[in-house]
């Protein structure tokens, strides 16, 4: 079926009109287990792509590999024309590919505003020798503080500005981590389960933030179990199972794919899993989040 993201029909590993990230033959083994075995994957630029799949499908491992937090056994991947295989994680982030973590990594004993300031790149005062000369960095510091305050306002965290991040709720930490990632104006944001542990009232505003990112030209790739969210905001869905890409396509199409139903959605294919899991089977949903 035709769409404006892939070249030709949507199929696992299909070519995209304008990919920002192209991965080839990426594999990662843990002992005898092949956690990731991706033959070819392209992430469309300027779109919101969801990465879904059952637990243990290798989604987070793939995230770790692409961002340099883990080393693959084989594979290359090209981000915005640059080969990133073997590049260390901090350099990946500097190139504009910034990630968040499944288990939120807010820096708990730093204040919220310091967390935000840390997200900015190229602060000259972060160089040891220049840190002595306040005039060299104070101007930039004021600029990033202003930007941080704007972002905090957008994420409704401005009231918590001076609090330690440890004092925030789990959902607020997710928001802080996302806001912090945006401090560097990334080109590609990779969100690992942005909705996990966020209360339903915050979910809506988080969804809006992610849509805003797209409006501003940022590419978003996110891992999520919440099918409601996937359907609601993603332009493209990639399905992983047992380390491989088993399906790809626009959300409406992928949800009907027999391979996806078999691998992931199962009997719940026609129901809204996101809502069901919260309202009727809470025990199961907490298990899934882990």
């Amino acid at each position, binding site marked *: 079926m035709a769409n404006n993201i892939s070249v030709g029909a949507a199929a696992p590993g299909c070519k995209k009109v304008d990919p920002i990230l192209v991965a080839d033959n990426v594999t990662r083994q843990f002992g005898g287990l092949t956690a990731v075995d991706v033959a070819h994957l392209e992430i469309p630029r300027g779109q919101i792509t969801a990465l879904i799949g059952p637990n243990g499908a290798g989604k987070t491992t793939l995230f770790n590999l692409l961002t340099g937090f883990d080393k693959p056994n084989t594979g290359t991947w090209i981000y915005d024309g640059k080969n990133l295989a073997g590049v260390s994680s901090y350099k990946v*982030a500097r190139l504009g590919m*910034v990630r968040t973590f499944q288990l939120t*990594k807010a*820096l708990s004993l*730093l204040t919220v505003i310091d967390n935000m300031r840390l997200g900015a790149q190229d602060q000259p005062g972060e160089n040891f020798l220049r840190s002595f000369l306040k005039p060299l960095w104070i101007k930039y510091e004021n600029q990033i503080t202003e930007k941080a305050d704007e972002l905090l306002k957008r994420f409704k965290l401005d009231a918590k500005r001076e609090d330690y991040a440890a004092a925030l709720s789990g959902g607020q930490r997710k928001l802080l981590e996302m806001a912090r990632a945006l401090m560097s104006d990334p080109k590609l944001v990779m969100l690992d389960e942005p909705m996990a542990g966020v209360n339903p009232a915050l979910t809506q505003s988080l969804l809006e933030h992610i849509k805003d990112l797209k409006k501003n030209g940022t590419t978003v790739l996110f891992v999520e179990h919440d099918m409601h969210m996937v359907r609601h905001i993603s332009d493209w869905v990639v399905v992983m199972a047992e380390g491989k890409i088993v399906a790809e396509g626009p959300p409406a199409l992928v949800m009907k794919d027999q391979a996806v139903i078999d691998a992931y959605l199962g009997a719940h294919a026609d129901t809204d899993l996101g809502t069901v899991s919260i309202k009727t089977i809470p025990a199961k949903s907490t298990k899934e989040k882990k």
Partner: protein
Amino acid sequence: MDWLAIFNLALGELISPLTAAYILCALGLAVHFGFTGLMNFGQAAFAAVGAYGLAIGILTFSMPTWAAVLFGMACAVVFALILGIPTLRLRADYLAIVTIAAAEIFRYLMLTSGFSDVTGGSAGLSAFNAEFRELNPFPDGNYGFGPFTFREEELWMRIVGWSAVVLAALFVMFVMRSPWGRVLRGIREDEDAVRSLGKNVFAYKLQALIIGGVIAALGGMIFVLNLSNVQPASWGTNFTFMIWTVLLLGGAATILGPIVGGMLFFLLLTLTQSIIGGLVDIGVINFLSPPQVGQVRFLIIGLALMALVIFRPQGIFGNKKEMQFNG
């Protein structure tokens, strides 16, 4: 018992050069552990490297004292690089094991007779502070009042030692308030998070190790300038743990903490020594022999520390709010 003499002795300890030396080492450890989260259990080695650097610079290379001080600091930088490059990728607890081993290796290298031409072996080095004494600008005589009365060379030693403390404290305060210090505190909380924000975590940790190490090296120099000799036996693990005690007493992630912690630690150490010793002498405590007093006071201080860590883990100056969430 002469209570006045006991208190005079204890008050004198407040500003003794030995206290200043420990405070400098604890300030260095505050940079490592308090601000960056590096579990360095080899701080004695950094102090020893500074002390031996100073003595060897003067005795073997015939350097003037100022050059030997710089030489000692440079040695600490080299030691930090040797220690840090292979180990800073380790997790905190493994780093603790490696640093304690490195400190022992250094001590045994200084102790071995193989290098005794340069290091003095087990006898150590002495007679390196003649020039330091000549630099003393104060004419002969007694200075100060009450418990703080010093001869001219004692005054000179105290002024040098405490100037070093003040400069080091201002230095640490300055850099920790900068964006550079903010990155270090971020690393203390979560390395991976800081890495994901595009910071070269390894380089920052190495810089912190070097800076804390150089400050400790200065402490080692004050220590040996005061004693006028360098002994390998001084730099055992107990030296490191005394520094940890001073740091935790005052508060790990603070500047004032190590300073007040150091003063309080030596005040208590001297007070308990004198009081228990006095009670033994006049026969009130008859189950202890005089040589046992030294051990008993460490026992008491150890218990006090356990109580402190349990009931006030943030130390005297630590931010309660900051510690409340720890764990």
